């Protein structure tokens, strides 16, 4: 009785093994089922979706103008203190003092890509870029100033 059970157990195990091996063989013969991506060789045609959150950027137009008014809504919305907006006062053509962004400091090393700053921005000045390869040799390089030097606020953005 014991011997019979023992042998049937072994037979069952070998049967299961063969069943699994049949699957393996099937995949060996159907190479089109393989889904391996050859990263980083396929970097150019990876095609990340446009909503993918990689890092916060501030788009500038051809005249080196951005849409950031320096209202610090993003700074308040950020849960980690990733964003620090340093504002300054500019005197416009009519001689009025107006608040403007001096430096938009963004700490990529603290960012969790939660998208709350982009949701909070009233003028769509910042957006998420699809870049995800962030490794650098020096940590200080992850602290970025998003507004370019000599950039101004775009006309008509309040």
């Amino acid at each position, binding site marked *: 009785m014991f011997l019979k059970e023992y042998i049937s*157990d072994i037979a*069952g*195990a070998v*049967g*299961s*093994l063969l*069943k*699994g091996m049949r*699957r*393996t063989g099937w995949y060996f013969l159907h190479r089109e089922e393989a*889904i391996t991506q050859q990263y980083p060789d396929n970097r150019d045609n990876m095609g*990340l*979706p446009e*909503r*993918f*959150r990689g890092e916060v950027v501030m788009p500038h137009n051809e005249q080196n103008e951005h849409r950031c008014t320096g209202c610090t809504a993003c700074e308040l*919305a*950020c*849960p980690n203190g990733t964003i620090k907006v340093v504002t300054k006062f500019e005197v416009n053509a009519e001689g009025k003092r107006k608040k403007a962004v001096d430096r938009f400091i963004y700490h990529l090393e603290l960012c*969790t*890509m*939660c*998208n*709350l700053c982009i*949701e909070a921005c009233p003028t769509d000045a910042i957006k*998420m870029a699809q870049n995800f390869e962030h490794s650098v040799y020096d940590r200080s390089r992850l602290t970025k100033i998003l507004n370019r030097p000599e950039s101004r606020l775009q006309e008509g953005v309040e």
Partner: protein
Amino acid sequence: MVEEIGTTEQGDLVINVGPQHPATHGVLHLVITLNGETVKKVEPHLGYIHRSIEKMCESLSYRQFIYATSRMDYLSSHINNHGCALAVEKALQIEVPERAQVIRVLMDELTRIASHVLWWGAMAMDIGAFTPFFHAFREREMINDIMEETCGARLTMNYMVPGGVMFDLHPNFHRRVKEFIRQFHKKLPEYDELVTGNAIFKARTRGVGVLSKEDAISYGCSGPTARASGVDCDIRKLYPYEVYGKLQFEQPLATEGDTYARYLVRMHEMRQSLSIVEQLIDNIPEGEFQAKTKAVLKPPKGEFYSRVETARGEFGVYIVSEGGTTPYRIKYRSPGFSNLSALDHAVRGQKIGDLVAIMGSFDLVIPDIDR
């Protein structure tokens, strides 16, 4: 803990598994007392991945704290966020639009499938079968791609906001989910062929790590772990939230309470989640995806509790509000912690080789246990 290291009784051996051990799937530290090959006691030591999320959330506003719960049970991060959003909505009495509710439930179920698929691969790997791991990642990748396209991230989506969801569905969403349903229907029998019906797998899991119904209740187990012991504990059935009350789905139950029963319950749950996705994908109502809310959320003074069913069990969020912009106290009831407490009971008297199989069937996610 010094006196516990070494032999406790004549012939007993105390060994440490973890915190850096491949079978614990994270930084879980188990102190195991062995008598020969038989496990006498398992003592989990926590604290290696404590990030003080509860305390951290208390300094954040009601919009901000939701993201942090993604870092607890990272495999069902969307469902965790859902629980938080529900609690905030309960406090502020926000009516969530029907479309947002359906989107939330759809994403919940996709997350649940992704989590269970990954568990299936990891469980088979714990037993010693390596191939299923790759098969599991193939299907999980499809869900991750869907998530990436609509939510903007693969794991820590932060797609929930109080009052709805952050963005509307991506135009490709419907097509890709349909594609996934077709693919998953084709691959589920393959899963069964590879692992469920495997004689070696059955021999390793049947009658191993039995948790009786009484023990499962008294240890506070929830989710598939408790349902495999016959405890009727699906929050989606017992306290339906969002549109779950209108859906047709079963709550898989088993009575054996062993490792194989826990395996079968999870396999069955995947099929049920798939059927929920099938029911909803063609019936997404039109309308708003987010209710209009104030810029600064200030719930009234009081205590609010909400619970959701994650892939591992009941996740509860308890908020005490003092009427300010930040919560006074937040407590999370995570399923992993209670499920882990039953591990000692299930493992006692078993062989050391079965410990990994039992632990795999509990589906522990360590950052969820130790938040």
